[in-house]
């Protein structure tokens, strides 16, 4: 399918998300769409896939002008979108997930659908059982299911939105192989990403968006430096990796056993010293999240103990941990970390705890203004948190933290943030380290793990590696471990 987007404009209030973007995608090709957060990629893709209507501009498919009003419209015209979080139904069987999205017959033919499912899965070498349940799948498998579903519905063009987030290296290779094969069979692919290396290794052409405009396009072989310049306007310096010598022991987990619905962790030991940064790597759902939560008193351990600064904390509540100087920053900023409907100022007041009965609004405003300035948040004291961008929400979460923390536990500190925000967030976290705060963080971005950690723990289906020094670890080795390969060497070695 030949897709032409002509002069697409879309504004949200004062923000011009797309300010006249024209792109042409040839049939049987893979187009990479690059851009930092807020560059307008998501909006453009939502317009093409029917989630939003443009203010002006037109979409031309195979030379024919098309009006797309809904995702169902888009699918009927052969455009399918694979979302970053797959849109599936975890409690259902795979085959029912397919049937749900199809145009309704009164009585769905499950047997035929299951047969077609198996044929499609076999064609692409996907190991999916139509009678299994969606919630038993990994993120990578859910992507495969979604691709399969879109193909089954007759998609001739696929939009993939940040598909390599949260999946393992082998899964990524498989995904790329699938995409290449689909393109060779005539599929038009739009690959949205902010990961340069993914675009460089996969795409036939790349366009870069910046501030709602088309900043330029590039053909292979790609010039990384030029792409970065198009994305950010200038080359961004990477923060130097500072190593802070370890102080006293801040966190000590001994023989920790955790049990969640899908996996068990047995006998996890970890000791973290003041000022140290420990990265937890692994596919999502490999056990790192429940481990992190258990270090904050948010998840009960079945056995074993947790000590914070020599103090026995096992089976104490999260608020006890808080009093001991432990902070926990969840990945879902707006769902778990912040309170939509309350302003920044009100968040700062809440984070301070109570000081008497009445709130001194004047003082609170001054305090809020100084924090907003200190953390470079783009917002005012009376800005509602939900109106902030992801990067500014994360800055706000950091700004809410007390100054004298002993341990910060962070889930995905920079997920969905652009490079500048990422560097800023980490510079703030490193400032804390310099003052003796230890940090344990989860990330699915391997570069982030290697760049900022002193030591790394790899999780794979509940198995946990001993802590590995980050300097002795390469991206490739880490990627293999995350994918469950190369674990033999740990089996005999004593735990650190």
């Amino acid at each position: 399918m030949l897709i032409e987007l002509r002069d697409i404009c879309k504004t949200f209030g004062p923000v011009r998300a797309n300010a006249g973007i024209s792109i042409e995608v040839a049939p049987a090709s893979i187009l990479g769409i690059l851009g930092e957060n807020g560059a307008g990629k998501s909006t453009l893709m939502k317009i093409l896939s029917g989630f939003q209507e443009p203010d002006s501009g037109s979409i031309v498919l195979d030379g024919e002008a098309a009006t797309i009003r809904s995702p169902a419209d888009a699918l009927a015209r052969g455009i399918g979108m694979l979302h970053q979080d797959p849109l599936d139904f975890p409690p259902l069987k795979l085959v029912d997930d397919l049937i749900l999205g199809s145009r309704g017959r009164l009585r769905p033919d499950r047997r035929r659908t299951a047969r077609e499912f198996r044929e499609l899965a076999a064609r692409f070498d996907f190991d999916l059982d139509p009678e299994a349940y969606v919630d038993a799948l990994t993120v990578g498998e859910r992507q495969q299911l979604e691709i399969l579903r879109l193909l089954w519905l007759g998609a001739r063009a696929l939009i993939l939105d940040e598909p390599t987030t949260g999946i393992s290296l082998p899964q990524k290779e498989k995904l790329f192989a699938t995409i290449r094969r689909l393109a060779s069979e005539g599929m038009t692919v739009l690959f949205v990403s902010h990961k340069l290396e993914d675009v460089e290794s996969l795409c036939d052409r790349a366009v870069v968006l910046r501030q709602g405009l088309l900043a330029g396009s590039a053909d292979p072989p790609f010039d990384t430096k030029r792409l970065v310049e198009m994305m950010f306007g200038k080359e961004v310096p990477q923060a130097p990796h500072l190593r802070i010598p370890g102080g006293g022991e801040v966190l000590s987990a001994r023989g920790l056993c955790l049990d969640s619905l899908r996996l068990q962790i047995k006998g996890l030991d970890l000791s973290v010293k003041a000022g140290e940064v420990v990265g937890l790597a692994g596919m999502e759902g490999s056990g790192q999240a429940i481990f992190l939560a258990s270090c904050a008193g948010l998840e009960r351990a079945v056995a074993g103990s947790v000590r914070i600064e020599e103090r026995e904390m096992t089976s104490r509540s999260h608020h006890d941990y808080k009093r001991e100087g432990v902070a926990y920053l969840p990945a879902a900023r707006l769902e778990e970390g912040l309170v939509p409907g309350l302003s920044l100022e009100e968040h700062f007041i809440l984070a301070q705890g109570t000081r008497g009965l009445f709130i001194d609004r004047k003082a609170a405003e001054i305090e809020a203004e100084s924090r907003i300035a200190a953390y470079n948040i783009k917002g005012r004291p009376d800005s509602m948190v939900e109106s902030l961008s992801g990067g500014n929400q994360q800055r706000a979460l950091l700004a809410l933290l007390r100054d004298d923390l002993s341990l910060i536990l962070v889930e995905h500190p920079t997920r969905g943030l652009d490079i500048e925000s990422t560097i800023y967030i980490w510079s703030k976290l490193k400032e804390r380290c310099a003052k003796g705060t230890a940090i344990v963080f989860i990330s699915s971005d391997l570069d982030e793990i290697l760049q900022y950690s002193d030591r790394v723990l790899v999780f794979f289906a509940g198995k946990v590696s001993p802590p590995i020094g980050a300097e002795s670890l390469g991206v490739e080795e880490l990627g293999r471990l995350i994918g469950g390969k190369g674990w033999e060497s740990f089996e005999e070695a004593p735990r650190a």
Partner: protein
Amino acid sequence: MRESPGLKPLFRAAAVILALVLTTLVLLATKSPPLAAYASIVRGAVGTWSVASDVVVAWVPLLLVTSGLLVTFTVGLWNIGIEGQITFGAVFATWALRSFQAPVLGGSLDPGLAIALAVLAGMAGGMLWAMLVGALKTFGGVNEIFGGLGLNYVATAVNLWLIFGPWKRPGVASMSGTVPFDRSLWLPTVTERSRFAPIAVALAVVGIAVVFVLIQGTYFGLRLKAVGKNPRAAYLLGIPTWQYTMVSFALCGLFAGLAGAVQVTAVYHRLIPSISSGYGYMGLMVSMLVNYSAAIAAPVALFFAALNVGSIQLPITLKLDSSLAGVLQGTLVLFVLLAEGARARLMKKGGSRP
């Protein structure tokens, strides 16, 4: 994103007009003269000093109940059990007053103190019944709507059992309630025959003012809001969420119990079967109508009270049922909520930014 300021009052006005139109249609459908009906309501509410004071008498429990409900709404809870909490306030207050009248204590207690203690007992009763709903929710995982509804029926049953059982009038039990208290135990009113008790009015006014300040100006209120809007984030921010839930139930029950006690000591001077008089449900409507903000709760509650009192004469003047007031109140709430939804949709038209 800021919304255009002119739009909100416009939608509000449209909602009021639509509610009036629908009510008029109901009247026309029953072949009643709409204008005469409305005129009758107005006359019934402000026609004489006597009816106007009745409006204030109805306003007091309604405003008290609304004050309490604003607290539970702030923490995101639907305290449907408010009716039972009013009833239990009335039961406890009656129990206290009956005890003070009993031969053992009879006459030995200063009447003023007795009334004060009875009001406190009523507040405790409402609080107890509300905390039961809270405990069921917090420790039993029972949604407060179901728990509250169930306990409403229990409260009604207890009330009826007391009136027709242990507290029945000498000789024959009757729907007219228990034996009236001694006159010395009535909350003082402006005149002998009036039910207008200045102290009750003062309690209601102070109550809504306290709730307003509590929610707008205190750490407690802000934390309640946080728990109401996002309990998970509130917990991670260090707020003990279930404790706040319980305290908000307790506060709401306290106000409901106070309303029940006022009904017993100032209005009926005895316990009657329908002692809550539906003020709880009406308070829910008022809270929704004022969009859960204490600032305009008092005038809206007064308006609802006026509608209620004003429609009492309808059966006499126009052979209409007095539930017409309920029709108007209900449609008003529905249309205001509908208009709010329509406005929100209009503002978001074209989709929101991800």
